[in-house]
């Protein structure tokens, strides 16, 4: 929906929000002489959970920013349902959300207002319908009692769940997650994994999850990609990841602690 539209529309039902596919074509990004993404090409199928793993600094978050159109690539492109993500009208064709690593909640707004911002700004539904929708999302993520709280009053796990709830209010067809389980305890990480899997089941949302959480990839992903040094070195199912042939993938997923020859001393 265009940002300048003045008429009010209703919320869509799950059936009216078909999942979308994502095509990454020869995507490269450089900052000066630093090449962060090198010729990435892959596809994410509609309704799929695609987990992109890789060590810190491998370009995962940069990829996400390109996938949602926050940055322009040096070359190549990202297509969502055939539309270039940098196209002016892309958000009229596809509703997509990004769950930021730190939540990126609006600190000056309460949790309720954070969630209600999108429908209010885009004039989706009446205030009563917005309240119902927001409370439904908060309930779905067990956040009912946080509606009047401010982001600064919430724990890290709650902030992540509020960020997911805020994205869900947008009725996304594509949802991207940036390190959704980082800085969380194992139980909260498992909860977030369950939420991502449930959302796919319940709302048929296509999900791209950037993470270095192996458990998350193995438990909920349909396919996993591994990014190293800006290149996609592996793409396959979680099962095939259990016995990887590439030694770099094996070392990344099951790093052995070698006190005789520590990594930080290797040349």
């Amino acid at each position, binding site marked *: 929906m265009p940002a*300048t539209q003045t008429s009010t529309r209703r919320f869509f039902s799950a059936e009216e929000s078909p999942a979308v596919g994502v095509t990454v074509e020869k995507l490269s990004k450089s900052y000066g002489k630093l090449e962060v993404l090198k010729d990435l090409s892959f596809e994410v199928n509609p309704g799929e959970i695609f987990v992109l793993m890789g060590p810190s600094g491998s370009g995962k978050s940069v990829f996400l920013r390109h996938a949602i159109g926050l940055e322009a690539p040096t070359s190549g492109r990202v297509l969502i349902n055939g539309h270039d993500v940098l196209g002016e009208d892309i958000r009229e064709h596809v509703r997509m959300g990004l769950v930021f690593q730190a939540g990126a909640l609006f600190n000056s707004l309460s949790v309720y207002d954070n969630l209600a911002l999108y429908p209010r*700004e885009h004039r989706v539904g009446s205030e009563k319908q917005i309240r119902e929708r927001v409370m439904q999302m908060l309930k779905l993520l067990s956040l009912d009692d946080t509606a009047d709280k401010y982001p600064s009053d919430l724990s890290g796990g709650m902030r992540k769940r509020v960020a997911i709830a805020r994205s869900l209010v947008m009725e996304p067809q594509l949802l991207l997650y940036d390190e959704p389980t980082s800085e969380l305890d194992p139980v909260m990480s498992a909860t977030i994994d369950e939420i991502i899997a449930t959302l796919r089941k319940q709302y048929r949302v296509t999900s791209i999850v950037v993470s270095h959480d192996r458990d998350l990839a193995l438990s909920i992903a349909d396919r996993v990609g591994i990014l190293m040094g800006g290149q996609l070195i592996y793409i396959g199912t979680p099962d095939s990841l259990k016995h990887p042939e590439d030694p770099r993938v094996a070392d990344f997923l099951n790093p052995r602690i070698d006190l005789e020859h520590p990594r930080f001393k290797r040349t």
Partner: protein
Amino acid sequence: MNQIRTILEGVGSALRLFLRAVSYARTMPSKWEFARLIEQCYVIGYTTLPIVTILCFVIGGVLALQSGYSMESFGAQQFIGSLVGLSMARELGPMMVAILLAGRVGSAITAELASMTVSQEVDALVTMNIPPARMLVLPRLAGVLFMMPVLTVIANIVGWFGGAIVCKYTGFISVNPDQYFSTLRKYVKFKDIFDGVIKAEVFGFFVVLVCCNIGLNTRGGSREIGIAVTRAVVVSLVLILVLDYFTTKVLISIPGI
């Protein structure tokens, strides 16, 4: 060479931001957008009023004192009212309001928007298809355009009264308020007050635009937020002085009605 490039990039970026913000002004505001406008009017107008009042009262008083001291030697004290009246209306009122706006409101705008940018709140708005220019910039620009005339007129009136009180209670001036306001009314025309309001509008608009632009282009962390705030205030102050010259030149070339 790099500095010239930085300045030109800043001008281009501010211009783009202005055009984007203006492009959203054509739609009917929702009640939420209207609420944001009211909030900005409150922040820009109401919360700035006390410091504007105090400063302009003192400026008016000091102006009367200084001019009284100079004019006493050739017995022209009766014209202090016109001097203070014109100085406040045409120059000091709008200038002081703009300087206070840059220091008090402009710095706060830059700090808030820079903090939102650094903590990815602005990115979140973009992903939600809510243009930052519409939600964050337009209400501030509209707010300053509504409030600058109000603040400037109040600054003028308070400054005139500051001058009148000093004239009455300073021994070597001893001009009573009736005399003071009589010459003020005789020499200060509506055009003088109107020109001052126009200047204030121009200053306020550019201060807010520059502060928003610097805030939204901040990258890095808390150190960069501090640098951005300092830069916004310095650029605003220089801009006010430069604009003052050009707006004055244009306005005095336009004949009064």
